[in-house]
């Protein structure tokens, strides 16, 4: 099973951002979209996330209910603690409150954020914030997690731990597509790499 993209061209405000892209992204794997700033990485991710509908070409769509799209620089939700955000991931589940608390705590444990779970989200570090979003995405138990530059302001050591977490999640059967410009990390951890340059695959 793959997500197939054929001859995809995207123009935003009269500027051609993606030129005739054809790729295949295997599911249940860890894919990285790599490239310089302005290469069209985020646009490609947004097309996959159904966030852009104005394009030409073919893409085998992921159902909106199956994916979580975490855009770049998500504004911190005010007032909420880390664990409140994770439990919001269970919004559509029919679980009891106790069950939600229990499951959230498990996810918090998995994502390594137990220490900060009761802190306000605004006050935790950016690496921890990304882990909270991962836990939130996992709570929604959706199959596809799409992330745009989650680690742009995270130091190298924390990045390593984060990628190992993602690796584990993919092994549990999820598909992760991540946009990054850190070539060295990606080559170690990703199953597939899509390199973009000026809107074309290279």
């Amino acid at each position, binding site marked *: 099973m793959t997500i197939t993209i054929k001859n995809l061209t995207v123009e935003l405000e009269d500027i051609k951002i993606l030129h005739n892209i054809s790729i295949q992204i295997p599911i249940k794997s860890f894919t990285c979209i790599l490239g310089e700033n302005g290469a069209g990485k985020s646009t490609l991710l947004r097309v996959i996330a159904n966030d852009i509908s104005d394009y030409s070409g073919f893409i085998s769509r992921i159902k909106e209910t199956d994916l979580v*799209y975490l855009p770049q620089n998500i504004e911190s939700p*005010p*007032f*909420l603690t880390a664990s409140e955000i994770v439990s919001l991931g269970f*919004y559509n589940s029919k679980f009891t409150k106790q069950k939600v608390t229990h499951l959230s705590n498990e996810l918090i444990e998995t994502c390594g954020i137990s220490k900060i779970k009761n802190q306000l989200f605004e006050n935790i570090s950016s690496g921890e914030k990304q882990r909270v979003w991962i836990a939130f995405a996992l709570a*929604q138990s959706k199959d596809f997690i799409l992330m745009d530059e989650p680690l742009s302001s995270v130091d190298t050591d924390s990045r390593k731990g984060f990628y190992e977490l993602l690796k584990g999640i993919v092994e549990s059967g999820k598909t992760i597509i991540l946009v990054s410009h850190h070539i060295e990390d990606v080559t170690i951890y990703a199953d597939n790499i899509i390199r973009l340059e000026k809107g074309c695959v290279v």
Partner: protein
Amino acid sequence: MQISVQYFILGLIIFGLVLVGIFTGPSDFSIKEMFDGLLRKNDHISQVIIWDMRIPRILASIIVGNCLGLAGVLIQLSTRSSLGDPNLFGIGGGAAIFIAAGFGGLFVISSFFSLIGCIISSTLVALGLSMLISTPNLSATKLALMGIAVAALTISIGTAIISHGRVFPSQIIGLVSGSFSSSNWENVFYLLIIFCICFAISICLARKFFAIMLGDILTKSLGVNPIKIRLFAMTIVGVLSGVSVFSGGIIGFVGLVSPHISRRLFGNSTINLIISSSIIGGLITLFADQLARLLFAPSELPVGLATTILGAPTMMYLALKVK
């Protein structure tokens, strides 16, 4: 402290203030006369003063406060901002324009239709404001700038109409700075019905408000439409502001301060926020009205001045605490 205990204490304070409202005032009655009046034991004048003046006034101030507290928390929840007050953002100003037009002699209508007019005009302002702020990245600054601009606009339109007509200064002060001195049972009845409806709807939406705290994109991933919820919330805010301005004039800061106090006391649960912010709004307004009534008795302060005197320093304190 347990949440039920906190609610009990709030209830106790309100009860105390109600007693103050019933038993104190410029008229010189003995305690016995007032009790007789309260229990309708004889045809003493105290009966009229207590049942037709003081009690409706107390109830009106509490329920208007409930409306403002609820409207404030709805704005703050639906815009994810810690700013937001129906009257400081000009939503109440919509109703004030309508009342000013009535004062100015542009039309003569019954109080029921005046209420409807107030509700419609402030709801229109609320919807206009929510159109203006429905941008993808709504920041607290943008919201505040829009709100202040809308408020300035409504106030100047209202003032223009008032200066055009021949209006008594006390009416103007009552409208612009708030007053409950002319409250009656009819008012209380309208207030109660509208507040209860709005409150019930808000409680039903509470879970959705919690979800939209995440921001628009992630809220959509939960299958909730944030724009629809925001529009709905702002409509309720418009109705609440309309009815509160109809009954008490423009009373600032209650809607801004109540959600902050309730967040500190009751935490983040949206249901508790909606309930407690309404109660705290009622408490603040009742307290402010008693201050307004008694501080310089027999002359009265406008209640909006009292809420501002209480609310502005509280807001400054909270602003200093926020990073």
